């Protein structure tokens, strides 16, 4: 017995989920994606993580990263710990893998911005 607001599209349908012997029943959804979302939320909620990773390049303390696919919601902080421990040491284009198959979850941690070396004095701010 649960109530959820679907977040797949801006419609935000109010979903009602009941548990029966043959599984979960979802009502209130307007489309199939909503039903899938509800089922996923009840069994194994999945999320993406977006964060930053340290670099040793001068003038670039951190660079944005994300996981390349969804991970289980209950592993968010485990994956964050891995991200916090990582560091980039050279220029790399966006999409570069920083941690491959993080914690065996079948996703990589990838950069989402081009990491470039700067000309000296080019930036005083980003």
């Amino acid at each position: 017995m649960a109530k959820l607001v679907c977040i797949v599209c801006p419609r935000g349908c109010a979903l009602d989920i009941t548990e029966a012997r043959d599984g979960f029943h979802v009502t209130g959804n307007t489309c199939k994606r909503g039903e899938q979302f509800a089922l996923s939320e009840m069994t194994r909620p999945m999320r993406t993580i977006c964060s930053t990773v340290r670099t040793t390049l001068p003038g670039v303390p951190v660079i944005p990263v994300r996981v390349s696919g969804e991970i289980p919601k209950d592993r968010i902080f485990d994956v964050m710990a891995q991200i916090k421990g990582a560091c980039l040491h050279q220029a790399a284009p966006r999409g570069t893998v920083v941690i491959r198959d993080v914690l065996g979850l079948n996703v990589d941690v990838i950069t989402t911005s081009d990491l470039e070396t700067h000309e000296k004095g080019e930036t005083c701010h980003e």
Partner: protein
Amino acid sequence: MRTWDVLVIGGGPAGLAAALSAHENGARTLLIEREGKLGGILKQCVHDGFGLVRFQEKLSGPEYAGKFLDRFREAGIEAMTLTFVTRIQKTGLGFHVTIVSRSGVETIGAKALVLATGCRERTAKQVSIHGTRPSGIFTAGTAQHFVNLMGQLPGKKCVILGSGDIGLIMARRMTLEGAQVLGVYEAKSTPSGLTRNIHQCLHDFDIPLYLSHTVTRVFGAERLTGVEISQVDGNMRPIPGTQQLVECDTLILSVGLIPENELAEKLGIPLDPKTKGPCCNAQLMTGVDGVFSCGNALHVNDLVDYVSESGETAGRNAARYSGAPRKEIPIETSSKLLYAVPQRLDLNADNKETVLYFRSREVLGNCRLTISADGREIFSRKYPFLRPPEMERLTIDFSSFGLAENSRITLDIEVNDHG
């Protein structure tokens, strides 16, 4: 004096889209950006959710910007970064723009301008937060800059005021970085941000949301030590006697965005008090011929996809700008709408595919948007719901309605039930 056809001021998503579009429409284009790198605010928006409409992908801010930056670089469009516009003068044939950079001071010329100057955050003083003046009080964008660009943790025990998207995003971001977010307080009785953000940023992390509450005072001689929270009434005024003290070391404010239009005002461009951006026609030309507006400077958007779209419209029309006379009629809104953009229609221009953006003033269930011209209804669309934080977009062919010089267009919402 160096001159260009189109000068785009601002290199965030709006400006990038405008510059690309102006260039693709044959204009010699220059983009000016005051920061060291292009991308605007997207550089620090490391979270995803961008581009759902435009690319059907859930991209992070830098990835979304990257798609435009790639095209921008490929096109070889000129850009000047760490360059600041100090003055704009309208001349007979266009504009003289004075810029300051490490190279010095230069005045350049342009036939048309696109103002893509974005917006700024409402400050603590503007929401009457009183008390001492300690460190530890940040607007959400500033806190985001510290975390996502500088890799610094601005706080350990946070209270967030305002349930706008930036506040919700920062609630999650701070939590991911190991800070404790005690709660999000919202003065309105409904949340300001997108529902998916309430879900993914607050519910996921058990961060409580308190509606109809606000921060009235702050404490701390050096660094923040706590905030005073009060309940508020229907007019968002603090109810005496409801104060409580919440101990914390950080207050993050997400209390609204204000379009940046200093340059527009100095040029004498009239602003719409409802949007705080320039009044524009469907070509996004402002009240001053040859000056176009787009992005968050025009009105605060929720989706960057629409920012890019407005940039493209402004850029395309700036490239095509020829000084042709206008014949404009007003597009007005009833009190059921917070605002609509554009605010005017130029009957001399091509309005076959006018993009109209609007926001409802209240949360509404089944309702109908109507557009009337001179008293007769010319368009209507049903909506299952309308929410102020979720701006709507429509494409309308205004050319087919027989509009004339003294016509007036009015937008209204017919409510069938309140949501």
